[in-house]
């Protein structure tokens, strides 16, 4: 049968999902441009210029590094995480429940794996745009002393990727009872506060530091810092950041494929 042999390969099909999501995003172009450019401007100004003046002569917690340089990689990672989280939560439940486009996709040759892969690729693209803009604004603020600085984009994206287990969780939600708001308040907010983003983890009492070690955001921020003004830590720790973030991301991704597959097969 010719229709069978003419099947495009699996990754090509996943791209069609990405294409679909990009097309749907066009409706919000204005908002997206405004937030993508506005957020880094606002945050870097507030932290780097505003808050930094309170901190004695803009000296960061690392010798020779300004507070702005210290905080910027973490803000970039946070921005990537927030973009990814939006898709891991609302993006997933939209497709499965609120406007079940995944069900429609699944009645074509697309499989659950291709749907999730396509969505992850879309999230990757969104994060790439957000972090790149962030990085350019960082450059404009003079917050990137090292030539390796551009790699902080990768660090931020890894940070967002590492939250993929949230997508797997979202795919199990049958009824919306405000789980996302609870998740936001009990997990995401504490993580952004206690992940060594705006002050070093070592400032925290020892019994709270473990939050940071578990937090993908801490690992992503520290990784970004190594690129922007590092190295400030042993190389094994830098490798550990990467491995930890990748592992969480891959596990979440695969779990998400499985839950979505189970849910679509009614």
């Amino acid at each position, binding site marked *: 049968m010719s*229709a069978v042999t003419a099947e495009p390969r699996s990754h090509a099909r996943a791209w069609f999902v990405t294409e679909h999501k990009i097309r749907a995003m066009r409706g919000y172009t204005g908002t997206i441009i405004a937030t993508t450019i506005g957020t880094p401007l606002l945050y870097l100004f507030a932290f780097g210029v505003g808050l930094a003046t309170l901190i004695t002569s803009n000296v960061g917690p690392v010798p020779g590094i300004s507070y702005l340089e210290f905080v910027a990689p973490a803000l970039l990672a946070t921005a990537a995480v927030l973009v990814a989280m939006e898709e891991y939560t609302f993006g997933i439940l939209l497709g499965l429940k609120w406007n079940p486009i995944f*069900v429609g996709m699944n009645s074509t*040759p697309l499989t659950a794996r291709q749907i999730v892969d396509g969505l992850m690729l879309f999230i990757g693209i969104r994060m790439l745009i957000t972090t790149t803009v962030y990085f350019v604004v960082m450059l404009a603020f003079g917050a990137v002393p090292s030539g390796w600085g551009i790699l902080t984009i990768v660090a931020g994206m890894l940070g967002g990727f590492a939250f993929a287990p949230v997508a797997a969780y979202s795919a199990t939600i049958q009824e919306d009872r405000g789980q996302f708001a609870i998740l936001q308040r009990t997990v995401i907010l504490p993580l952004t506060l206690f992940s060594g983003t705006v002050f070093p983890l070592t400032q925290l009492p020892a019994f709270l530091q473990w939050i940071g070690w578990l937090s993908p955001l801490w690992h992503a921020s520290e990784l970004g810092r190594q690129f922007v003004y590092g190295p400030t830590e042993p190389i094994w720790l830098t490798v550990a950041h990467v491995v930890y973030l990748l592992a969480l991301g891959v596990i979440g991704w695969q779990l998400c494929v499985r839950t979505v597959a189970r849910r679509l097969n009614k």
Partner: protein
Amino acid sequence: MPAPVIVATDLVKKYKDFAAVDGITFEVAPGESFGLLGPNGAGKSTTMRMIGAVSTRSSGSLSILGLDPNEHGPAIRSQLGVVPQQDNLDTELRVRDNLLVYGRYFGLPRAQVAARADELLEFAQLSDRAKAKVDDLSGGMKRRLTIARALINEPRVLLLDEPTTGLDPQARHILWDRLYRLREQGTTLVLTTHYMDEAEQLADRLIVVDKGRIMAEGSPASLIREHSSREVLEVRFGSERNATAAADLAGIGDRLEVLPDRILLYAHSGEEALAEVTRRGLEPITSLVRRSSLEDVFLKLTGRSLIE
């Protein structure tokens, strides 16, 4: 005879211990228009999802276009068109864009999808709405768009789960007309409905399902011939007197069915039955003679109305 496009044998779908589809067997020939008629919860949609190669059967065997959906889901789905009971159009996209993204899922080149989308908008009488938001369409228009979308890959089999439920009569007739054309072009149609007139209009052959089982099978005409009389006399005596009047009506026609609001008398000639009713001195508030329909078949087979 050409090989059937669908062969289902003892097909079962269980949700925990509950069998939503409980051992059904049927075949659909190429070019045929095949219907599943049954009340709410009969297992129609569940069956359609299994045929659509998205829901794994619990037991039995199933072959779609010669392939087992357990092994060849994507290959089967590439040749199907699916109109689900609940529209799942992307409301974030405009009308024409919905067709474009969907066509791409079949691996069709962009230019081909675009050309096909325009043809289908024409077919669905939505050309002037191409740029409209999906949410701004009426129910009938959304349904037509969903059907257009299902045709983007020129499917060999079109699955329609309650294509016209919730539409007004005019919208239904427009849809029926479109489906008629597809039949003429040789597309195999499988449709579910709980409207007997729709089944009579659209299906060459159908199965009547209830509680996951097949109650009867045949063409609409043969089912009526087999399970009902030629005509039906409907008489109303008012809800209080219905039951007592029924006793006095015994023996008129072949069979009698007492419903809460009326009594149905099955007879070859409704007029003669009515004459007999009057001769017995009974005076119904209203009386109506009509031809037997699938509704009557269903009532006889299950003891319940199709639409409760």
